[in-house]
């Protein structure tokens, strides 16, 4: 259930990642359902993100079900992914460092297994 090597978030536990992002979105007022988290987890498996757009779109298509929630989704996504420096491709240790070092997404560290 970890993302394959070479992906943007190589070696990251997909389910934990999805749950973490979902929690973050819920706190921002986006009503993310359990079904949606399942779909996002599956999406990360069938379309491993290579860059920010290929992470953004599967997340948005599965986790947001109403255009009214898009602004909140975008601001969380920006805060977590765009405003922090993403680790280089295919480097699990970098992901681990990044998860720990970035101030905002501390939720990612809890329960996130890095292979």
């Amino acid at each position, binding site marked *: 259930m970890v993302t394959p090597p070479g992906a943007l978030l190589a070696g990251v536990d997909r389910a934990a990642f999805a749950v973490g992002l979902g929690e973050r979105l819920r706190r921002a007022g986006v009503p993310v359902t359990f079904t949606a988290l399942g779909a996002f987890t599956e999406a990360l498996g069938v379309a491993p993100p290579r860059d920010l757009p290929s992470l953004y779109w599967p997340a948005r298509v599965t986790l947001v079900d109403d*255009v009214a929630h898009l602004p909140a989704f975008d601001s969380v996504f920006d805060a977590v992914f765009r405003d922090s420096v993403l680790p280089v491709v295919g480097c699990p240790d970098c992901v681990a460092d990044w998860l720990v070092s970035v101030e905002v997404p501390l939720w990612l560290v809890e329960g996130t297994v890095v292979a």
Partner: protein
Amino acid sequence: MPPVSSPGGLTSADDVRDRFDAHNYLADTGTATAVFLSLQLGLPLLLEGEPGVGKTAAAKVLAQVLDVPLIRLQCYEGLSVGEALYDWNYQRQLLAIRLAEASHEKLSEADLFTEEFLLERPILACVRHTGPRPPVLLIDEIDRADDEFEALLLEFLGEASVTVPELGTFTAGHPPVVVLTSNRSRDLHDALRRRCLYHWLEFPDPARAAAILRRTVPQANLALIESATRFVGHVRTLDVDKPPGVAEAINWVAALSVLGVTELGRAEVLSTLGVLAKTPDDRDTVLAAADSYGLP
């Protein structure tokens, strides 16, 4: 990692974009991703956006790309089970009763509610489709149907099945590819949204709008397309009742082109106004815009 194959052999969102491109539908990354994931995850896709941004066209092109039949259900107020899912063939039932009476046979109620007397409507037709590959079902403008109709769809959207109380439950051998569209004229129920992947289609930015027009109205000259795209973009920023969508832009450029227009001016806007402005108020607004926009 080897590419994952989905119905129709689409291997990635980029692949979806390329295959749609080959059918003259220029999909952006969001639309391509939504379509790819809908196929991969086997979930219905809810496309929402203003009228004319290409929601229905996306479903049609998807059927072409997958090379499968498109089954379309146009929604309207009062749409019911009998028109959307299935109905009973009352004439045949009546005939069966008459025949039984004439030959003094006994006919029980159960004899009259068998598959023989069942009429397939679009959704049951999809569930019972027997071809090698599932069809694409387009449930168009779901926001026009009533809340009750949304509730009727939930079993089908969740389990790809339809229950006929008298007969039992029919479940699709190959779950159909389902695309729902909504112009957001009213809010859809959460229960329906939860069962779908969701994509909000934006009106394309000027560069993409121009690319779409170049593709769909190849006979129009490039300068005309560019100025028309800019003007449509300008009109969309105004307070109009019906902001022109991609469909209106395409029709407008096609109309201008048929009239032999190569350069956009006030007279040209006036002669083709009906394509761009759909209400009397909008006619005034668009004409005023043509004046203030500095068209020759």
